[in-house]
């Protein structure tokens, strides 16, 4: 039975109202056709191009333009962006009323970062203590993200905070630096605790998923990098088992399959690296992957059937 015949049937049965029937028939035929996604693409690409161009221009023409022009121009964009956001969403409880506000705020935040980078590089106001800028910027972004309910800016805040901890995305996979690993774990724990606390306080609880995903990935990646060490990896291995166990338990309890997936992938890679690191026989290695691969398939399928819900 097609969608349209079903809709007709539900109207005749009285399950949906005639108004709903007209609306849903129209939506099923793309009437009206929504340009929401294409407009978002235009805004997003536009903001990125604009800020990228500003950065390139500042870099290339700093000498010709001079500090006053550069700082004034960047400050004007920043002030204009913030003015627009605060005047168009004056109520702190009001969610972003339209997509323009989201991108204007994103533009303002990126411009703030650019201006700060320029000012510090040029004037060394904090004597090169870049860390302080990062922390202040992260706090500023968190405040704006929560004030305007903006996920772009929340992610920007989380990546800036990670920068304060000395973590950048390029250093995440497989790094061997133990000091970096400890900072990454500290960052992951802090993000997890902050996310939980904010949710308990019912402050934008719909952001909790973003906090927890970032925390889980940073923590598990950091611990996994310790498992790859040639010596002293036992503690990291135990921590990985604990982390994967916690991720699995949370995923099962909340039916959040992404956390089951994290547990499966990080756990499998970690355990495999321990078990096959001293194997030199290709037959044994391949046999291991055949057996464990099938075992994982069975375990995940059973888990999905038992605890699952369809996507």
């Amino acid at each position, binding site marked *: 039975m097609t969608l349209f015949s079903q809709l007709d049937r539900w109207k005749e049965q009285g399950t949906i109202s005639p108004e709903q029937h007209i609306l849903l028939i129209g939506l099923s035929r793309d009437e009206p056709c929504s340009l929401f996604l294409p407009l978002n693409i235009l805004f997003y690409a536009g903001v990125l191009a604009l800020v990228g161009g500003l950065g390139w221009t500042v870099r290339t023409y700093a000498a010709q333009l001079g*500090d006053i022009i550069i700082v004034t121009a960047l400050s004007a964009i920043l002030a204009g962006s913030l003015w627009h956001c605060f005047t168009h969403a004056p109520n702190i409880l009001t969610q972003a009323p339209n997509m323009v506000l989201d991108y204007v705020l994103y533009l303002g935040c990126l411009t703030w970062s650019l201006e700060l980078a320029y000012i510090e590089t040029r004037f060394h106001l904090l004597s090169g203590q870049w860390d302080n*800028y990062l922390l202040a910027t992260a706090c500023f972004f968190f405040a704006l993200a929560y004030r305007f309910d903006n996920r772009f800016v929340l992610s920007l805040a989380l*990546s800036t905070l990670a920068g304060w901890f000395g973590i950048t995305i390029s250093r995440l996979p497989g790094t061997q630096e133990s000091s970096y690993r400890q900072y990454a774990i500290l960052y992951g724990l802090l993000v997890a605790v902050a996310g939980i606390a904010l949710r308990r306080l019912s402050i934008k609880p719909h952001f909790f998923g973003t906090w927890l995903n970032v925390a889980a990935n940073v923590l598990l990646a950091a611990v996994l990098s310790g498992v790859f060490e040639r010596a002293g990896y036992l503690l990291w291995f135990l921590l990985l088992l604990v982390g994967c166990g916690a991720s699995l338990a949370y995923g099962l309890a909340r039916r959040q399959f992404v956390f089951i997936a994290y547990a499966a992938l990080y756990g499998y890679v970690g355990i495999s690296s321990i078990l096959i690191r001293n194997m030199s026989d290709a037959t044994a290695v391949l046999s291991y992957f055949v057996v464990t691969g099938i075992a994982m398939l069975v375990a995940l399928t059973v888990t999905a059937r038992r605890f699952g819900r369809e996507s």
Partner: protein
Amino acid sequence: MRVYTAADEESLRILQLLKDWVNLGFLEESQRQTVQQDVTCELRRTNGFLRAVLFIFTLISAAAAAGLFFIVSPPRDAASFLLLVFAAACYAGAEFAVSRFHLYRHGIEEGLAVLSIGFLWSGVQAASPQGSLEFAAPAAGAIASYLLYARFGFQYLFLAAMAFAAAIPQFWTASHSGQHLIVAAFYLAGLAIVVRIQPSHRLDYLDAEYSVIETLLWLGLYLSLNLQLSSASLIAPWRPDLANSAEFSRPFYWTTFVMIWLVPAIILWRSLAIRDRTITSLGLVVAILTLATNKPYLGLPHHAWDPILLGLLLIGVAIAVRRWLANGPAGIRQGFTAQRLSGRDKQWIDSLSPTLAIVLPNPTLAPLSSEHEFGGGTSGGGGASSDF
């Protein structure tokens, strides 16, 4: 041809739409619970994350099994034959998984289908003699990918078929212009077929699928025509065989220049005519690519402020279109609206935006530290010297 029945796929579409409509507030949850009882579907689906993990583990175990077979009983002269046997076995496994367990986008049958193409391509590659039959491997890959797409409906296999098809012409002609033309002809032929078929599926579950297929074909056509992109430094390390844009004949070069302006216009015109937002989105993306590659095409140098102008143009267009639509009755003009009417749009933006915000360069994390690039500021405020 399709392994799933039309009724099942239509039911899945209805279930997805019902969920969407509840999320958008067009339907009450209680209404959904009631009407959902009328929609029966025996297909077994899973969550997207689990689907990805199952796909990975299927690839690991099946590829390791094939490798194990080669090590335990190494074939002397029959390696290609053995690979073809593995391809057949993987395909049979995918069919079995669907027919026996009713799997639908479940990762396992997808992993087996992908492996069967990989084994087939490797087998034909190993069996093909050097010379006139070298094109057989990509051709086999293209045909197999298309057939498995048609059988299971995995749209990424259609993309794989397009990629294999793009690799065929290099065995037919040494002329880079000729290769671009043949690839463009492949995609154009595909477009002609899809454009002809799609209208009869405007109201059923295949509409969205054909929309994606048409989008992929338009993208392929555009990329095959934009010589600046195909010879870009981004791709060059992986495809050193690709020609430098200066190697093309002038008439061909300038024809493609005209085409990279025409194709986005045609895509946008068609997408608005058939009211397809996936194709509209692609039209905008390729229009941006045309604007970004226009200067290299003309041999003009890029200026630092070019991205600023591009950004302002894109933002200006977006604001103008949005305002124009919003000022229409009920926010609708000519059958278009800026409002979100699909849960998938929000899903895309919600899942992509945080990832992009983290992955893309954050200016705060990359201070403008290359001091030598700031020579001789004119004001040198704050007591700083003019050079740093």
